[in-house]
């Protein structure tokens, strides 16, 4: 379609403004992470550190148990993602292929569960987990994360299952394969990329999660990365800016990497679920 020159310039100006809005806060975080205390204290901060240093990173690790927190986060997020996908895939298959009362109820639950204020769920969960002595344990947190990530895991997986033509399964059935055999040897390989994308998405959400971790984990050694990060912000909100920025940047790296890898599949999956249901 034809676009006039002035309209083109306007479009690029708008796009650049948006890119700046997206990028500048992040660049500032990076810049702060590499600044020595003297530059952070100066009244005229600069975008590019004049004397870049890694001291903030060292100090961040000295001040808070970052490594330990990262391991806790990794453990919680990886197990939650794995379990969630293992549980969700068969159910998503049924939801996609059979329109039953159960399937519709499940779809309804997926939608409704997006509207809960977590507080209504977390108080009873807190009481139950307390009775089971699972407060302050990564295992208890994983249980919560699994159920909490099931709705969108189902949502994405239903989209992926529907994208596989049912004829393939019927062909396998005609060739004499039973249901289980069809699922394992026909569906599973075709769904594998979607399952991996879903698991990675579940991983990132659990890695980033804060509210449940804040409520359920009390001992500092058991806390996950987002919770430990808030310890850098002191009681009065006065923070050691350099180490805070350094730690915050490190905490983001894993999700950025994972997301960069699977972003297309995720948007594809979310849209497939949204468009077809």
């Amino acid at each position, binding site marked *: 379609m034809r676009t006039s020159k002035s309209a083109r310039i306007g479009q690029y100006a708008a796009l650049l403004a948006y890119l700046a809005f997206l990028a500048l806060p992040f660049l500032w975080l990076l810049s*702060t992470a590499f600044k020595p205390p003297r530059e952070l204290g100066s009244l005229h*901060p600069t975008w590019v550190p004049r004397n870049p240093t890694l001291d903030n990173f060292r100090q961040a690790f000295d001040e808070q148990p970052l490594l330990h927190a990262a391991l806790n986060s990794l453990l919680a997020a990886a197990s939650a993602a794995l379990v969630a996908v293992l549980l969700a895939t068969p159910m998503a298959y049924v939801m996609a292929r059979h329109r039953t009362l159960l399937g519709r109820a499940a779809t309804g*639950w997926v939608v409704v569960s997006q509207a809960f204020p977590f507080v209504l769920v977390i108080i009873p969960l807190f009481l139950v987990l307390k009775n089971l002595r699972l407060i302050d344990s990564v295992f208890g947190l994983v249980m919560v994360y699994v159920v909490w990530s099931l709705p969108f895991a189902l949502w994405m997986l239903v989209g992926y299952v529907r994208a596989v033509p*049912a004829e393939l399964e019927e062909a396998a059935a005609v060739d004499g394969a039973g249901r289980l055999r069809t699922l394992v040897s026909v569906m599973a390989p075709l769904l594998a990329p979607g399952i991996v994308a879903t698991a990675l998405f579940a991983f990132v959400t659990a890695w980033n999660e804060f509210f449940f971790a804040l409520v359920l984990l009390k001992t500092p050694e058991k806390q996950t990365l987002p919770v430990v990060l808030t310890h850098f912000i002191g009681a009065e909100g006065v923070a050691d800016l350099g180490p805070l920025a350094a730690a915050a940047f490190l905490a983001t790296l894993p999700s950025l990497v994972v997301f960069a890898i699977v972003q297309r599949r995720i948007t594809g999956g979310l849209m497939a679920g949204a468009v077809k249901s």
Partner: protein
Amino acid sequence: MTLVTGARRPAKRVTRAGPGSRPLGGHGAWFLVLPALIPILVLSVGPLLYGILLAFTDAQSGRTASTQWIGTLNFQDLLHDTLFWQSFRIGLVWAVGVTVPQFLLALGLALLLNQELRLRWLARALAIIPWAMPEVVVGIMWRLVYNADAGVLNETLRDLGLGDGHDWLSGLTTALPAVIVVGVWAGMPQTTVALLAGLQNTPRELHEAAAMDGAGAWRRFRTVTWPALRPVALAITALNLIWNFNSFALVYVLTNGGPGGRTRLPMLFAYEEAFRYGQFGYAAAMGCVMVALISVLLAVFLVGRLRGGEER
């Protein structure tokens, strides 16, 4: 694809490939559903019902053993709790204040990205940042930007000769707008991607036909683009309103509800009641009221929008 065509052997028996063609066959299907269904019932539906029950009790942390049924007392107290209603109002301002500008910006951006522009790849790459960042980190990052002395915002304003250092997050009038900006930033990519997907469903030929008929850009948007985009736009807006109303981590890190409760969203208020003061029953009642009111508001919103669409 060749596999698919090869598979069409029994001409009649093969029902349409679409979903819902077959009944739930035998016990196999139940077997597939149970692994997910049991945890959902035990850890999600169960606690939800239990939470509603708790709202009618005086449950407190530390003495849950002697919990008593107190009827609607919690709800009556809530009705007179000015702090709750303050937080509820703030929650609404925040939810609308984030959702509306975010939608408009995302719509503009989606329309831009739907064109042949050079920097599209960069926009897509950068959009990952807010999407993938933990909310806690987003909060920390913006604290650095807003910082009174060492923050880039004040420095830029100083360079432009506008003001000399303002403490945005602790100013009574600036705190809420400041956190709203962060909310807009954090949710832009998802909204943009959803709208972009909606745009790509609009048939290109329709656009071209309208352009041939001499329709200007605005006419084309109103008559071709918007009608196709409306369902997606409506869904994402409704979801954004709910998500924003229920949000917690971002504002917890940015202001922790301060200054003087000016940014205390309902979830922050409920969190404090439950886990700082141990008022489990009261906080559960608050959760119930939030669910109820958000459903009513959404229903009004959706009905209004649907009707608005029919009149045209």
